[in-house]
């Protein structure tokens, strides 16, 4: 627990010193979501139906873009090797790192999402569903993405490779996240989708740190 909080503090300090990185991902999220109305036309009815899905796809891409930051810098300067050599179980500090990554790259997306939702004509209740679905879904994106980031450490073309590895695995989160907003719009209700997202989050939280630990060991040795 101590190790997790120490690592969390370190990661957050590092992120605060390099605020540009955090903002870049956030603006990427905003820009991608703003491109869709320009592409499909300003028809409000259509945009309202698409809104949830577009915000979710943009969140997926933004989360993927931020994965490079997760381990790359620590790998380059040798910190990662030192972390692996510490007696602290890898699963503990990996959980801390992923948590920090989510706080830095996931939470800003959740806070920005209502602004984008309003642009797509979503109402108050629907915005609340959008935010809760992102609250449950974005940690999963960080967790699953960490596996891809760990496996592609130091590889040529790592960024594109991560997208190929990770995006297919993101599909369930996208389906249930966008489905929750859809359910709120159509009046079918979004509890089922949110419960499934919560289930995926619990499963991912239990399993992925172990996979990330194995992946890091493979990449470092």
């Amino acid at each position, binding site marked *: 627990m101590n190790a997790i909080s120490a690592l969390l503090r370190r990661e957050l300090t590092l992120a605060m010193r390099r605020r540009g990185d955090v903002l870049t991902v956030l603006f990427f999220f905003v820009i991608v979501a703003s491109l869709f109305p320009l592409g499909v036309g300003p028809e409000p009815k259509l945009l309202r139906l698409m809104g949830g899905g577009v915000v979710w796809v943009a969140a997926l891409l933004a989360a993927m873009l931020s994965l490079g930051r997760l381990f790359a810098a620590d790998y380059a300067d040798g910190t990662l090797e030192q972390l692996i050599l510490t007696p602290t179980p890898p699963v503990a500090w990996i959980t801390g790192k992923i948590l920090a990554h989510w706080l830095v790259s996931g939470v800003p997306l959740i806070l920005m999402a209502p602004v984008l939702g309003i642009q797509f004509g979503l109402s108050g209740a629907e915005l609340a569903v959008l935010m809760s679905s992102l609250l449950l879904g974005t940690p999963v994106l960080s967790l699953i993405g960490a*596996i891809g980031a760990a*496996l*592609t450490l130091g*590889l*040529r*073309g*790592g960024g594109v*490779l991560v997208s*190929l*590895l990770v*995006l*297919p*695995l993101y*599909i*369930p989160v996208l*389906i*249930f996240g966008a*489905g929750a907003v*859809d*359910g709120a719009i159509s009046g*079918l209700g979004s509890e089922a989708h949110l419960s*499934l997202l919560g289930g*995926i989050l619990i499963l991912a939280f239990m*399993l992925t740190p172990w*996979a990330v630990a*194995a*992946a890091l060991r*493979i*990449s470092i*040795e």
Partner: protein
Amino acid sequence: MMSGFNLYKYSSPATFYALAGRLIPWFYGAAALLGAAGLYVSFFLAPTDFQQSEAYRIIFIHVPAAWMSMFIYIVMAGWAALGLAFNTRLSFMMASALAPTGAMLTFVSLWTGALWGKPTWGAWWVWDARLTSELILFFLYLGFMALQAAIDDPRRADRAGALIALVGVVNVPIIYFSVKWWNTLHQGASVSLTKAPSMAAVMLAGMLVMALAVWMYAIAAALSRVRCIILERERNSQWVAQMLEAEE
């Protein structure tokens, strides 16, 4: 110790190379015979479907390819798990030898599905749950192969690929059900594959024989590919040098 036949002997690349060489003709032969028989049944013996006329005959390629594409992914993940658990190099080589065949069969099933969909459903592609999950399976195969291709160190490539194959196989059921529910929640399924009219026994027989043929082909192709991988990895070892000398 076991006397006489020892199965563990074949976990060594050198002995397996020879064994695979002896087995390949048999599997290719079986694939050719079963393929010929299956094609004969499917094109000459199986009756014309009264709803879909002749277009339905594409299922004799399509269904075996789809079955095998899923089966191969599971087998691949099994080899990957075996390799990670027992640290056997041959298991990793088998996993990477299976991937291209699996990806090819996934592509064949998508392609033939599109060819069948156009006359039957009137569309090359619909976002049906099965089509979508088959497409995602194709992406998973591509991710596995791309990851292995990007890593130069064979040991790391083997293990990284094995891990992503295992992560994929855990995710496949989750992806399948999410896509299925997504499809049924979005819109009423306009086309359903599940309520197929009961199939004539001859059609089923043709399909099963074709599935066996594809299975045999997949084994033969994987064994041929694993032989290449073994030679490439072991090119500096003594037994390869000796074998090449003997052949000259």
